[in-house]
């Protein structure tokens, strides 16, 4: 061989490709916390290439039946953990019924990341600067987690613990996520500020707004931010304050400023805490206004679905 075949980047590990979830869970037990679950590998393999992660074993979920796919069920969307980003991106039904997800998908990494990366992998990785964890909070996600003693359902508020840390135990596997869809007349907005398309965002925001019947007043609003704290942030305290306001009013800016002041974004080479708070303030206010305008557009008879 021209180059020899002994050069390898990741440290040694045992590779397993189980055919069933039960087999995968048994393998996790066998390695007693030293094994990692491999989904799309777009975050884990880089860490292993740099030997920042050195698991004793990889349990590859790729060939387990039933872990991928989208299923709409009444007012809910079930997303299998191994569903590839590109499958969400190209789904006409996702575009029709949860369009903000379609708007967000092109911002998730790059094309060649989305062909391999998975919905469950992104959520389990729990990067607070990533798009999908924040959108999961926006739709009150429930996480279905399989473990040695059975399956448990965890609300989003208990799933994300801190930076790159979820509530998943070492012997558990995230199998799917259930999103509660917004009413059909809700408007939405997705916006992120990044240095380069596809890079991690400095900060970003997903917004859902419902207007009162026949009026311009906000009936309800939901706001989720990423890149602004150690976990994705849902503005549960501020959301009720938007109700009863008109989108053009100055009150929107005041509520946004107050909510942004409570965020704790880290200072790094890309931006200071104060800079990120300022981005968040602007994203919250513009998100509310743009989502309200979108809601008005969607209910008008001549509505063009964005």
């Amino acid at each position, binding site marked *: *061989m*021209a*180059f020899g075949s002994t050069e*390898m980047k990741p440290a040694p590990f045992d*590779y397993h490709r189980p055919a069933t979830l039960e087999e995968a869970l048994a393998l996790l037990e066998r390695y007693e916390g030293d094994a990692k679950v491999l989904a799309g590998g777009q975050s884990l*393999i880089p860490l292993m290439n740099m030997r920042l992660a050195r698991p004793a074993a990889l349990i590859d979920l790729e060939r387990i039946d039933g872990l991928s796919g989208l299923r709409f069920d009444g007012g809910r969307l079930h997303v299998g953990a191994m569903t590839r980003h590109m499958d969400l991106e190209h789904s006409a039904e996702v575009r029709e019924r949860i369009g903000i997800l379609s708007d967000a998908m092109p911002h998730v990494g790059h*094309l060649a990341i989305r062909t391999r990366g998975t919905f469950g992998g992104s959520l389990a990785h729990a990067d607070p600067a990533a798009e999908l964890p924040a959108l999961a909070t926006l739709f009150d996600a429930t996480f279905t987690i399989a473990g040695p003693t059975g399956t448990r359902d965890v609300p989003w508020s208990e799933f994300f613990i801190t930076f790159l840390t979820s509530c998943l135990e070492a012997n558990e596997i995230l199998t799917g996520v259930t999103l509660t869809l917004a009413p059909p007349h809700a408007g939405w907005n997705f916006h992120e500020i990044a240095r380069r398309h596809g890079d991690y965002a400095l900060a970003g925001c997903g917004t859902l707004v419902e207007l009162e019947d026949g009026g311009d007043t906000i009936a309800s609003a939901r706001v989720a931010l990423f890149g602004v704290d150690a976990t994705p942030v849902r503005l549960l305290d501020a959301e009720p304050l938007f109700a009863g306001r008109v989108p053009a009013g100055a009150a929107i800016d005041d509520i946004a400023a107050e909510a942004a002041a409570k965020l704790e974004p880290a200072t790094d080479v890309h931006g200071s805490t104060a800079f990120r708070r300022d981005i968040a303030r602007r994203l919250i206010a513009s998100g509310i206004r743009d989502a309200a305008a979108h809601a008005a557009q969607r209910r008008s008879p001549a509505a063009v679905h964005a």
Partner: protein
Amino acid sequence: MTTDRHDIAFTLNGKPYERTVDGRLLLSDFIRHDLEFTGTHVGCEHGVCGSCTVLVDGNPTRSCLMLAVQADGRTIETIEGLTPDSAPLAPLQAAFRKHHGLQCGYCTPGFLMTATALLRSGEHLSQREIREAMSGNLCRCTGYSGIVAAVDEVMNGVGKTDAV
């Protein structure tokens, strides 16, 4: 020596292969070092630069972020597959040359494989959309204008390019 060895069968550039690989061998190193298809270039080795992009079942994929063992049962295409049997340059490659879409050439195989997938999709993208779709590939000779012009010409035809 490791005992974590795995038998795999796959198709590379239209030909079937069977090999035995270490579980920790990256697809990029497998393609270059073992199969000796050195047209696939390796840059950052952690999924940022896009140089090592190959097609897996038709989808552009970073071969440094995939294990060789995961190629089992898959169809892999590399730049060598674009011009089989020393044929003249493929239309996309000819357009890259015409528009000076490469300088040092290190990133070029990755760009060509990403662009090949875009062309096969049958979509007609604007130059702005082409830039977005190719944003996962980095060129440090800053040859993006030529690259985008080359993809635009093959995708949309000569004389139909729009302004950037």
